């Protein structure tokens, strides 16, 4: 009797149970989609922001500054930083130009040396100053075979065998 009642109840409840199941599956799909979409949007937004930042770090994208803003060196694009560096080098060169240095030396009481005032000393191992080197000379890049790690040369099985052997040796050395 009880079984009959239970089956009757289950039968009568079956339609809405089925609906709940369908709704549940639908909501699950919806939530999953929303999570995936959310992650996608988040990543996309971050990628976009980074891309824009990279662009702005490279060049002044829209080309011009307003008179009402002063660019800070912290957010200058690379192009303008290079201009700034070149400008600073020129300013430094002005401050150390021959005329300026000559005037400073004279104001400190120095004067040009006459040949007969020069005293020459022979110093063992003295190396005369060499003209400026602003960058290394071009030389071919030679990758020495000896410099490449064994892992990149030996076959996989050989490496595996070696690792096993090393591990075994390690355990073999363990003293009680």
């Amino acid at each position: 009797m009880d079984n009959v009642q239970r089956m009757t109840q289950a039968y009568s409840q079956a339609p809405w149970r089925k609906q709940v199941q369908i709704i549940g599956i639908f909501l699950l799909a919806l939530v999953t989609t929303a999570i995936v979409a959310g992650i996608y949007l988040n990543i996309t937004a971050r990628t976009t922001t980074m891309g824009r930042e990279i662009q702005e770090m490279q060049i002044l994208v829209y080309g011009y500054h307003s008179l009402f803003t002063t660019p800070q060196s912290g957010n200058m694009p690379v192009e303008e930083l290079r201009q700034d560096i070149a400008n600073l080098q020129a300013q430094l060169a002005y401050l150390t130009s021959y005329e300026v240095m000559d005037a400073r030396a004279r104001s400190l009481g120095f004067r040009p040396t006459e040949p007969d005032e020069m005293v020459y000393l022979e110093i063992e191992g003295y190396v005369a100053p060499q003209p400026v080197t602003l960058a290394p000379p071009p030389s071919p890049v030679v990758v020495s075979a000896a410099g490449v790690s064994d892992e990149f040369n030996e076959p996989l099985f050989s490496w595996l065998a070696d690792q096993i052997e090393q591990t075994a040796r390690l355990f073999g050395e363990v003293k009680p």
Partner: protein
Amino acid sequence: MKNEHTWRYTMLGVLFGLIGFMIIVQVFRLPYTPQAEAIVNEGKLYERTWHIYYPPRGQIYDRWGSLLAGNTLVYEVGVQVGALQNAETVAFALARVLSTHPEYNYADFYTDLLDVMEAAEESGRAYTQLADFVTPEELAQLKQWAESYDDLPAVPYGDTKQPSLVGLVYRPRLKRVYPEEALAANILGFVNRDGDGLFGVEQQFNNLLAGTPTGVWMTLDPYRVDEIPEMEEGSDLVLTIDREIQAAVEHVLDNALETSGAEGGTILVMDPNTGEILAMASWPRMDPNVYWDYAKFFPENQPYNRAVSTEYEPGSVFKVLTMAAALDSGAVTPDTVFTDTGMFQIGGIYIYNWNYGAWGPQDMGGCMQHSLNVCLAWVASQMGATNFYEYMQAFGIGHRTGIDLAAEAYGRLKLPGDSDWYEADLGTNSFGQGVAVTPVQMLAAISALANEGEMVMPHVVRSIVRDGYQYNPAPQVVGMPISAETARILSEMLADSLEEEASDALIEGYRVAGKTGTAEIPGPFGYESDLTNASFVGWGPVEDPQFLVYVWLEKPTSSPWGSVVAAPVFRQVVEQLVVLMDLPPDAVRAMMGSE
């Protein structure tokens, strides 16, 4: 009950179905409508921006790394037409701030600015440039003006709109600058308003220095950021010039011009072993930072650098080459005696000495010491024309030296067979008349005497720095016109000559070899003028030459003679050189060598 509502549900279902269907249809239809195409096209205008990238022009250094030519910030100023609020204020402010700017300090600048802005507005342009090469100081003033206008109260201004500089924008860029000002200006040349190198190193290496200004469409799509292209930057140059020596030599030249009354001149200092030019002073000389004054300093297209672009008759310094050729060919020996009767006939003309005197028996050293035209003409005749001119060509006379500076002149050496060559030319050419050279050509030719017979190519660029590497081109020996022995014999002969005549070129403690030159100046109808070009070429220390100096003064008025005006200048240069190059006196070097 159930059947009663079925049709309603059905109708609702159909309705929503229809709406859904229409939405789907529209989704697929809308992208292909003309309106959509227009919107897409308009959108494309904003997906990228045109950007002109000006790579910094390569810098130029002296041999020790002092900056001779660099770059400084200037600004391009313009208006974004759409944002412009008051064109009159913008024009007024710019005209006032730029009133001392060399390019914009003219009366109609204000009205010109208004015209430019009006034209831009009418043509629908988004941006128009109003001024360029605005200095940082001028830009700072503009910013102050902008802030002042911004602080004005917002009251009605009637027909005249509220004063404002809104819409005025700027963009930084680089301009060539020469921190040493006029120092080495003739070597460097300058860069004009358009960014083109003119004269000197700037012109010769323009392509290398300038990099490649490139206009590119920069994408604004953040996902395509990797498409922004890498731009090629300008290369840096390290010159062979020594700033200290250059300054000293320019100072000596300027003093020499003042005391001698010469119109112009040049002094060259070269390392005869490598061909490296250590200094190249020339007058006239201007500050390349104010290149627009070029015409004031160089009227009527005068050469910018006399050392490489001026052709002239060298006079007696040329005798050094004649004697070198004669000794090397075996036509004479140092002991050959020539009896100077005061005249020598060749090709139907008579050759006379500088004082029209007869000097009697002279060995070759005596001929050089007294600078005897008659003797040298005889020497050339002993060699024969073919032999003589082969040697002169081997010395590079009449050819460019190949120096790495712009606008090098050729000079002129008439050769047998040329329509304007006569036998008499052999006689006059032997002592430097009827032949045209440049100072740097003489320097290169005479380097053979100071460098064991090997002639080196003079050059001013020591290194090129490109893509993070420094390239040092090797010095070039361009020929060996005479033997090492001949070079040594002639050096000794000339050093003895200077000592015997107690020349003003002698420097205490250092043995030098050299020769004076006094050249008459040819005009359209011959040598009519009393004016001369005075010169001196010398090198030392004779035992191991470290410097070769050529002095050339154009039309000195204090004295016409090279021995009087040019020889002391050589001495003054060498007195500075031995200090700046750390060259001990001969005695000290001999002592160090013997230890």
